């Protein structure tokens, strides 16, 4: 006798023989669980998905084409919009790819800043993913708690970059500005709040009967198939493969901090949830350790120990009253790009072909002014030698790669982003086929589809 099929368990033996139970269901792109940008056309047998066709592209905005139009640094704001929950990692990964092409190294302090800000972004991303996917399962409280924690972290991001989402903080050869004063204390406070939220969410979800019923054993993918589909990040670690770009090819300051690569065995939605929850703790650990080890910058004070108004300073320079200006170490807001020369030099590489001179030098000396124009004027700017380079960073969803090709000109010849959430979306049909329509929701939540990077 044939094995009892899932359909027969659901509908009773012999129920719905013939084609009457088969329907085609189109979900999305306007379906709220599809985040407005995915369409799944599923062939249903009763409530079981027999075959699914995933359609993407609803958020395509020609990222790669747009990058070819402006200068190398002009692509930075576009990269903000790739993974819009952790835009800092995109900024830094793109900048590092171009730096690889140029063959330059960034300063030590900049590497630490990139590491710290990436880890804060990763926590934001995981908070959003876990929060949103548990909200879709009805755990609205968790969503509110996690968004609250994310808010604390976004305040940190706002302190550093001046924006919450469209941060454009990375630069080829460095970052926009140094970390603000008192940043470490703020990080400690925000992490304390985040840890409390995580402990609370652990008590609410981990081991919760309703949550586990929806997550355990659902949306599972085997280890072989996960690798064959090129899936990286938390989904790969959830099947027991300890691949993490941060340890496999340590970039920035990851080789100088200690952390564990979290893995689980089962590869189902619950394992992915556990990996993400544990990774947040590891990310905070990395950020704290990096903050403690970060090379300290020189203390910038005025001759009389007063900060100087940046506008007045720049005005003086514009009027040519430059005498003595270059000697004054000044102390200005870190959010004003390059106003503070010492700190600026510390987070940016000294390569004049790449990094704009600090405003102090631009307004204070003819060499600085010329250097500034050589980087800004049409037809000039950063000119990496002709060639190609691929740089991979560990994004929140996995390996975030940038493949850049230069023809020796001032514009990228080609910028290719390897989006970490495209492989899991390509494999989504393998995860949902044979399962119930309702199982689609937690599975879709656990792959953490981010439309910005998926559709580019």
């Amino acid at each position, binding site marked *: 006798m044939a094995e009892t099929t899932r359909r027969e368990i659901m509908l009773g033996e012999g129920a719905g023989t013939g084609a009457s139970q088969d329907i085609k269901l189109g979900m999305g792109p306007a379906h709220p669980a599809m985040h407005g940008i995915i369409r799944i056309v599923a062939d249903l047998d009763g409530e079981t998905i027999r075959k699914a066709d995933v359609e*993407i*592209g609803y958020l*395509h905005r*020609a990222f*790669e*084409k*747009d990058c*070819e*139009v402006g200068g190398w640094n002009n692509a930075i704001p576009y990269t903000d919009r790739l993974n819009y929950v952790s835009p800092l990692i995109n900024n830094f990964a793109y900048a590092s790819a171009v730096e*690889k*092409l140029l*063959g330059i190294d960034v300063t030590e302090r900049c590497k630490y800043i990139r590491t710290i800000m990436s880890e804060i972004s990763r926590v934001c991303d995981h908070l959003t993913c876990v929060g949103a996917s548990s909200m879709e399962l009805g755990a609205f409280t968790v969503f509110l708690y996690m968004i609250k924690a994310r808010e604390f972290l976004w305040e940190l991001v706002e302190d550093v970059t001046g924006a919450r989402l469209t941060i454009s903080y990375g630069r080829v050869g460095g970052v926009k500005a140094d970390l603000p004063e008192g940043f470490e204390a703020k990080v400690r406070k925000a992490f304390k709040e985040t840890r409390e939220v995580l402990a609370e969410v652990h008590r609410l979800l981990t081991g919760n009967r309703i949550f586990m019923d929806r997550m355990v054993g659902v949306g599972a993918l085997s280890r072989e*198939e996960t*690798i*064959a*589909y*090129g899936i*990286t990040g938390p989904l790969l670690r959830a099947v027991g*493969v300890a*691949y993490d770009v941060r340890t*496999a*090819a340590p970039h920035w300051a990851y080789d100088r901090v200690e952390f564990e690569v979290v893995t689980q065995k089962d590869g189902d939605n619950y394992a992915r949830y556990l990996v993400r929850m544990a990774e947040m703790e590891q990310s905070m650990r990395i950020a704290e350790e990096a903050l403690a080890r970060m090379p300290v910058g020189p203390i910038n004070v005025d001759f009389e120990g007063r900060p100087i108004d940046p506008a007045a300073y720049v005005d003086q320079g514009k009027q040519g009253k430059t005498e003595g200006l270059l000697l004054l170490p000044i102390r200005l807001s870190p959010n004003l790009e390059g106003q503070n020369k010492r700190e600026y030099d510390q987070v940016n590489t000294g390569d004049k072909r790449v990094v704009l001179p600090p405003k102090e030098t631009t307004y204070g000396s003819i060499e600085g002014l010329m250097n500034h124009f050589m980087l800004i004027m049409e037809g000039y700017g950063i000119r990496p030698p*002709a*060639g*190609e*380079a*691929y740089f*991979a960073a560990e994004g929140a969803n996995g*390996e975030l*790669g940038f*493949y850049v*090709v230069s*023809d*020796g000109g001032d514009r990228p*010849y*080609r910028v*290719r982003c*390897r989006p970490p959430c*495209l*492989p899991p*979306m*390509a*494999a989504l049909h393998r995860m949902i086929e044979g399962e119930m329509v309702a199982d689609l929701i937690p599975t879709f939540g656990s792959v953490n589809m981010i439309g910005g990077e998926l*559709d*580019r």
Partner: protein
Amino acid sequence: MDGGAILETLRARFGAALTDTHAQHGDHTAVVDRGAIVDVLKFCRDDAHLGFDMLSDLTAVDYLKYPGREDGPRFEVVYHLYSVPHNHRVRLKVRVDEDDPVVPTAVPVWPIANWLEREVWDMFGIRFDGHPDPRRLLMYEEFVGHALRKDYPINRRQPLIGPRT
């Protein structure tokens, strides 16, 4: 295995099918003949010493306006392979002409090639021979042209198409 040894292994196995190699910026790269690419990919995946079990990325570059390459093969299809057990990478490239932009598909080797090849077809108009589902990936079927080709103007607008009935 370091990058040089990977290229050496490939050269020893495939000889003349590897037309060019370089190691710019530490990324070891081999240019492979179109006819041999599937064999090379299979060998990369199955050879115990290479063990490239992951196709990280598959994309293309249009060299139409690249200085010094205006006459040469117009497109390059670029494969980035990664090996999880050995933690090494290699980049393979296939050059194809504008008149005959066809490359054999890698879907039987790695299932992820399905979507990546669909994207390359969508954006560059390079066809993948034997692809099981040769639709566009990001754009809609009614879209005319291939947007990432260098001769597709960035400001060209096309009418929006409503939902299919």
